[in-house]
C-alpha cells in the first residue's frame, strides 16, 4: 500500500500514544534537517538507517557526520530511520504502516539509497527487521532496478561476509571519504538506458573501498574451511582496500539535539582517530589506522559552536586513547577556562592508567562533578598484560588508584577481559586480588566511602587483529572463571558485573563467520531473534535452532583455533594492515613479546605502504605515522615489529636479548611529550 507522509502522520496519531517512548518515532529535533521532498533540485534521497532503537543510534557520531555531509549538498537529501521497539513494530505490522524517514515521513522504499550503519554484530538481526518493515526483498539478489540501493558501512563491514547477502554494496573504511563517489555512480547509473541491478553492482565495484558481495564466489574445502574467494567480474578487485580520510575535516557542530534521553546525551567531538598502542585484542586499534589528530584550535572552536547551537550541558572528546592526543592538556585547560563556570561537563574517555590522567580529570571537575573514575587494564597480571600488549606495571596501577581516591573520587571502575590466550585461573584470581588491593587503598585513603566496580567481559577474537587466529574460550572455562570471581568479588564496597557468555558467543560467531552464516542470521531472525543488545529480547534458542536448521556448528566458528595458513573469511578485505604484521604479533603473543607504541618507532604495519600518496599529501603533524619524503626527518622504521622485551615468564630463552634497546616495562607517565607540569 502506498502511504503519503500525511497518512503516516495520521496513522501515528492513532497508535503512538500506546507505545513506550513515542518520541523515538517522530523526529523534528533541533538541528535535524527537513528538506522539501519534491524539490526538483534534489536528485538523490538517502535514508541513513541505524539498526537499533533511537536511544542507541540517536547519539551515534558516524550517523551525524554523514547526515551533515550529505545534507550540505543541495542535490541530495538525507533522513534518519531507526529500528522500532517491538511494541511499535506490532502496530506497524498490524496497520501495515511502512517504515519511514523521520524528517519528512516518506516510506523508506521511496528513497533512492538506504545506508545502514553496522557498528557491531548485535545489530545484524535488526537490519532484517528494518528491511522487512520497508517492504523490500531481504536478499540483494532478489531486488530489481526499481528498489532502493541498500548499502552498509561501519566497522562491522570489516568482516562483511555474514551480512553480505543482504546488501548490494558494503563500504570498507571511512564513509566520509567514499559516500559521494558512491552516490555519483548511482546517479550516473540511473540515467543509463537498459539499466539493471547487475550493471549497478558492476559500476559500484569500481569505486575503491566499495565491496559488492554478489560479484564474488566463495568455494569451500572438504574441511569446511574456505578454499578461495574469487571475483566473478573484472570490475571487482581481488582485495578491497579500506578508504581513509587524508585529513579529518572540521567536526560537525550542528549536532541533532534529541528530545528524549539517548545513551550519550551530549555533544561529541572526535579529537583523534586511530590509536598507536597496538593492543592485540583491539579491533578499533587496528582498523582505524593511521592515527590522525585534529588541531586543538579547531576542537576548541567546535566546543563554542556546539554550546551556542545545541545547548548541551556536556561535551565529550572522543578518541581511542585520550591521553595520547598531543594537545590534551591544552585542550582541557582552555575548555575549562572558557566554559568551566557555566557548568559544562566535559567527558574524556579512554584515559591511560597514569597519574597524568588524574591531573586531567581533576581539571575537568570544575564543570559538573562526577563520582567515578574508569580504567581498563584488561588483564590483572603483568605477564598477561604483556601478552595482550597493554603493558602497564601493577605498581603504577595501584599508585594511580591511590591518587584517584586521594583527590576525592569514591568509585574506581575497572574493566577486565577473561579468555585471553595463555590465561590461567591464577590470572583470573589476580583480578579479584587486584580489586581487593585497590579497595584496600581506597579504604586507607577515604574509609568506608571508597568502592570499586569490576566489569568483566569475555575476549571475542576479532577479525583484522593479531588475535584473529585465537579461539574463543570454552563455555565451561568461562563459567568457572566467572564463578570464581563471583565468589570472591562480593561484600561491601565491591560491585561485580559480567557479560552473559551466551551473548558473547553470538557476537563471536557473527564476527568470525563466513558467507554461510547469512542463512543462520536469516533463520534466527525468522525464529524471533531481534534486539540482541537488549537483555530481554536476547533469544539464544533461536540461534541454536537456526544453526541446526542450516546445518552448521557455532563452536566451529567461534571456538576453533585457526591455523595461520587458513584463508580467513575476511581476507579479501584489507584494513591497510598487512597479514604479515598481524601474524608476527600473533607469534609475539605466545612469546610474551611486547611491542612499543608506534609513535616512537614505526613497525611497518602496512598503512604507510598502502596510503603513501595520502601521507605525502597530509601535513606532517596531521598523522602520527612518520612523514615520507627525502627532506623529512627520519624516524626509526622496522620491517617487522621488534619487541621491546620478552616477558621472562613467557620466554625464558629470549628474555634479555633485547635489553640493550629499551628498558623493561615502563612506569610513570607514558605520554612522554607531556609532563604533568604542563597542566599547572
Amino acid at each position, binding site marked *: 500500500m502506498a502511504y503519503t507522509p500525511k497518512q503516516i502522520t495520521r496513522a501515528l496519531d*492513532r497508535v503512538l*500514544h500506546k507505545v*513506550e517512548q513515542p*518520541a523515538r518515532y517522530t523526529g*523534528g529535533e533541533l538541528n535535524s534537517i527537513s528538506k522539501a521532498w519534491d524539490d526538483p533540485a534534489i536528485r538523490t534521497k538517502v535514508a541513513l538507517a541505524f539498526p537499533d532503537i533511537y*536511544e542507541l543510534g540517536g547519539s551515534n557520531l558516524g550517523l551525524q557526520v554523514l547526515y551533515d555531509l550529505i545534507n550540505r549538498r543541495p542535490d541530495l537529501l538525507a533522513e534518519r530511520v531507526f529500528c522500532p521497539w517491538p511494541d511499535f513494530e506490532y502496530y506497524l*505490522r498490524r496497520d501495515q504502516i511502512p517504515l519511514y524517514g523521520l524528517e519528512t515521513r516518506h516510506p523508506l522504499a521511496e528513497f533512492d539509497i538506504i545506508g545502514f550503519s553496522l557498528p557491531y554484530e548485535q545489530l545484524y538481526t535488526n537490519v532484517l527487521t528494518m528491511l522487512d518493515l520497508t517492504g523490500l526483498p531481504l536478499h540483494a539478489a532478489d531486488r530489481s532496478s526499481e528498489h532502493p540501493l541498500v548499502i552498509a558501512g561501519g566497522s562491522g563491514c570489516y568482516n562483511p561476509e555474514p551480512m553480505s547477502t543482504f546488501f548490494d554494496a558494503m563500504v570498507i573504511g571511512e564513509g566520509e571519504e567514499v559516500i559521494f563517489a558512491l552516490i555519483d555512480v548511482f546517479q550516473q547509473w540511473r540515467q543509463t538506458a537498459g539499466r539493471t541491478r547487475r550493471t549497478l553492482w558492476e559500476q559500484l565495484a569500481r569505486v575503491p573501498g566499495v565491496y559488492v558481495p554478489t560479484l564474488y564466489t566463495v568455494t569451500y574445502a572438504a574441511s569446511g574451511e574456505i578454499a578461495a574467494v574469487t571475483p566473478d567480474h573484472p570490475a571487482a578487485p581481488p582485495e578491497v582496500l579500506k578508504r581513509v580520510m587524508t585529513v579529518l575535516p572540521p567536526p560537525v557542530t550542528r549536532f541533532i539535539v534529541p528530545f528524549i534521553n539517548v545513551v550519550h546525551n551530549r555533544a561529541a567531538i572526535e579529537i583523534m582517530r586511530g590509536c598507536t598502542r597496538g593492543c592485540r585484542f583491539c579491533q578499533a586499534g587496528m582498523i582505524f589506522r593511521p592515527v590522525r589528530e585534529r588541531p586543538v584550535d579547531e576542537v576548541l572552536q567546535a566546543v563554542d559552536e556546539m554550546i551556542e547551537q545545541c545547548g*548541551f550541558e556536556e561535551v565529550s572528546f572522543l578518541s581511542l586513547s585520550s591521553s595520547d592526543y598531543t594537545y590534551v592538556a591544552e585542550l582541557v585547560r582552555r575548555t575549562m577556562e572558557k566554559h568551566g563556570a557555566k557548568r559544562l561537563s566535559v567527558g574524556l574517555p579512554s584515559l591511560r592508567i597514569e597519574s597524568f590522567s588524574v591531573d586531567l580529570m581533576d581539571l575537568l571537575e570544575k564543570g559538573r562533578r562526577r563520582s567515578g573514575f574508569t580504567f581498563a587494564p584488561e588483564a590483572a597480571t603483568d605477564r598477561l598484560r604483556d601478552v595482550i600488549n597493554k603493558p602497564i606495571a601493577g605498581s603504577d596501577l595501584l599508585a594511580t588508584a591511590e591518587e584517584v581516591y586521594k583527590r576525592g573520587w569514591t568509585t574506581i571502575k575497572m574493566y577486565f577481559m577473561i579468555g585471553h590466550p595463555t590465561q590461567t585461573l591464577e590470572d583470573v584470581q589476580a583480578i579479584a586480588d587486584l580489586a581487593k588491593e585497590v579497595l584496600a587503598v581506597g579504604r586507607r585513603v577515604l574509609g568506608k566511602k571508597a568502592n570499586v566496580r569490576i566489569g568483566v567481559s569475555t575476549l571475542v577474537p576479532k577479525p583484522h587483529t593479531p588475535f584473529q587466529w585465537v579461539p574463543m574460550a570454552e563455555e565451561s572455562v568461562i563459567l568457572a572463571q566467572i564463578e570464581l570471581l563471583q565468589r570472591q568479588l562480593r561484600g561491601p564496597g565491591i560491585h561485580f558485573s559480567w557479560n552473559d557468555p551466551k551473548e558473547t558467543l553470538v557476537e563471536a560467531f557473527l564476527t568470525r563467520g563466513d558467507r554461510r552464516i547469512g542463512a543462520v542470521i536469516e533463520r534466527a531472525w525468522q525464529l524471533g531473534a531481534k534486539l540482541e543488545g537488549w537483555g530481554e529480547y536476547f533469544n539464544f534458542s533461536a540461534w541454536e535452532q537456526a544453526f541446526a536448521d542450516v546445518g552448521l556448528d557455532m563452536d566451529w566458528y567461534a571456538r576453533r583455533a585457526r591455523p595461520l595458513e587458513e584463508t580467513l573469511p575476511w581476507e579479501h578485505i584489507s584494513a591497510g594492515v598487512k597479514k604479515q604484521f598481524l601474524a608476527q604479533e600473533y607469534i609475539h603473543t605466545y612469546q610474551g613479546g611486547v611491542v612499543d607504541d608506534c609513535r616512537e618507532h614505526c613497525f611497518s604495519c602496512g598503512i604507510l605502504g598502502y596510503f603513501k600518496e595520502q601521507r605525502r599529501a597530509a601535513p606532517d603533524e596531521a598523522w602520527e605515522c612518520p612523514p615520507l619524503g627525502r627532506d623529512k626527518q627520519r624516524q626509526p622504521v622496522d620491517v617487522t615489529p621488534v619487541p621491546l622485551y620478552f616477558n621472562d615468564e613467557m620466554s625464558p630463552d629470549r628474555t634479555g636479548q633485547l635489553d640493550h634497546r629499551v628498558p623493561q616495562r615502563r612506569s610513570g607517565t607514558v605520554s612522554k611529550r607531556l609532563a604533568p607540569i604542563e597542566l599547572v
Partner: protein
Amino acid sequence: MNEEQAPAQRQYIRIVYGKGEAIKFISHHDEFRLWERTLRRADLPLLYKQGFNPQPHMQFASPLGVGITGARELLDFTLSPAVPLPALRQRLQAKLAPGVTLVEVEELAEKPASLQGLLIGADYSIVIYAAPGEIDPALLVQRIDEFLAEETIWRQRERKGAIYSYNLRPLIFDLRYTGYDAAGEEHRIFLRVQQRAGATGRPDEVVDALGFDDFARTLRRDRIYLADSAEDTAIFAAYPLITQQQIAGRAGTGRSLRQHYQDAARKSPALAPGGVGSRSINERAGDEFV
C-alpha cells in the same frame, strides 16, 4: 559563595508558551531538559540549586501527559544576574526548540509560589481526525451523552507499581461535541476537568472511557486555571470541589491503560515474550563504541 546570600540579584521570570504537535510525545522529564538547553543556548544566566548534582531553578505549572499539546503552558525560572526583559525575550525567541512558541514573557516582583499548588482546573480540546463521513458525529455525541449520564466511571491507574481505581466521572465538569472542521478533517470535543493534587481528570482517560482510543487523535490543553486568579476562580465557582476521598475506589483490580497498551502489543505471536526495559539505557551505553 553561598548563592542564597544574594537574593537581590535574582530575577524571577514567568513565560507562557505553546507546546506544539512536533513535541507532544516527549515526557515532562524530557521537556525539563529541553528548556534547560534552550536557556543555555540563549546564554541566559539560569540559577542553579546547590548540591552534588545541581538542578536549575525551573518550575512548570503542570506537566503535560505524553501525546498532549499545550496552548498556554506556564514556566517559572530564576536568573542571576538579571537580564533586561526585551533582550531576554529576543534571546529566548532566537533559541527556542522546535515545536515551542513563546506567548508571553513577564518579570515577577517576587519569588512566585509553587504553580502546581495553585492549580484548580484545565480546559482541553479533544481532536479526532477523520475524513468527511468516516465517523458519524451522531456516534460521538451519543457516546458523550452516555458518558455524562453515568454517575461513576471507574478507571484503573498505577502508582508505584500498584493498581488503584478511582471514579473519573465527578472530575469532568464539561464535555461536549463542538463540531466538525472539514478543512482539517477534525471532529472537536471540548473538555473541562478539575485539576488538583490527587484529583485530576486526565483527557486520555476520558478518550478511552468514551471508546475513542483507536481513532487518530490529538489532545490539546487550551488553558490552565489557577487559584490566585480572580477570573479563574470565578469560572470554577460554578463547580463543586472534588476531593481525593470522593473519587477513591476499592483496591484496584484489572489493568491500567498503560498495561492495557503493553498487553496488546505483546499478544502478537510475531513478538517474543518479555518485559520492556529490563536492561537500562546506561548498561547499553557501555556497549556502544563511538
